């Protein structure tokens, strides 16, 4: 992992200046990969540039669906489950992000991934921040929908999927 490139250094600095904590995930194999978290905790975003030839960054957030929520989905009847999952999909599309429900073509998602690309060319701090807001809010929306529908998972299992 190299971070001594001007643009990557700038990206890192922008988030640091916004008082967020920035770290490099140990398993990262991409050319550039940092995770960004608000100081008081909260949603974790990944900022990735896959290779040094890639002209853009991917800002993404993966929301692992808690086992309890997966079980709750399983207990729903097919029509209500479809309606619930579809409504999340449509709303995310409206929020202007890329959406992946994983595994694909399954009734019950285990992971919902939201992301957005931003080109390096002409990238200013506020453009980056705009993408950050979009992705973070899309991810937060997913978490809130599950919590509102099925209740919080805190204390239910000693496992924090939503971080």
């Amino acid at each position: 992992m190299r971070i001594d490139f001007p643009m990557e250094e700038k990206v890192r600095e922008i988030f640091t200046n916004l008082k967020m904590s920035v770290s490099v995930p140990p398993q990262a194999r991409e050319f550039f990969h940092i995770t960004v978290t608000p100081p008081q905790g909260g949603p974790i975003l990944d900022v990735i540039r896959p290779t040094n030839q890639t002209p853009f960054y991917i800002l993404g957030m993966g929301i692992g669906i808690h086992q309890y929520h997966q079980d709750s989905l399983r207990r729903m009847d097919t029509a209500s489950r479809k309606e619930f999952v579809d409504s999340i999909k449509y709303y995310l599309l409206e929020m202007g992000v890329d959406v992946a429900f994983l595994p694909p073509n399954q009734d019950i998602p285990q992971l919902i991934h939201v992301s957005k690309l931003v080109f390096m060319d002409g990238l200013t701090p506020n453009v980056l921040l705009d993408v950050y807001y979009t992705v973070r809010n899309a991810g937060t929306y997913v978490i809130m929908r599950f919590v509102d529908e099925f209740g919080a998972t805190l204390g239910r299992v000693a496992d924090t999927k939503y971080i």
Partner: protein
Amino acid sequence: MDTVSIFKALGLNVTEAKSSEYLHLTVSPPQGGPTLDVVKPERDSKFYVLGMAISVHQFHQQQLRSLKEEDRRRFLSKLRYALLKMGVDMAFTPPNEEVPQVIFVSRVVYEEESTPNDLLHAMYKVRNAGTIAIFMFADRFGTPQLGSTFM
């Protein structure tokens, strides 16, 4: 253009608020309407926070309280989802209570390399997010009688 002249160029009233932050401006339309706070927390902060605090009218708090729990939750969830879509930060105070007294929506603007349009973009987001919150209360519960209203 500096921050103050950008807001003035838009015909808005800009006044400096007394506060502990390095810079704290309140910005409002001359004919009245939603007031925005513009805050630079410290001298060396690299960003501004544009925010709008919506005090939920006592009447609306009462109305919310009188709803069935499920309806109240549904109403507040809908509001939260709408604010998330607007791309703002949001805080309901007191947190985790069923009836919010103040809803705060905000957006951060990075100062370096910022253009007047970046500020304008954030201003629209915050103002419209705040307006959505106000409208959702008014449309659901009616407009409270004159007197203290949303700030």
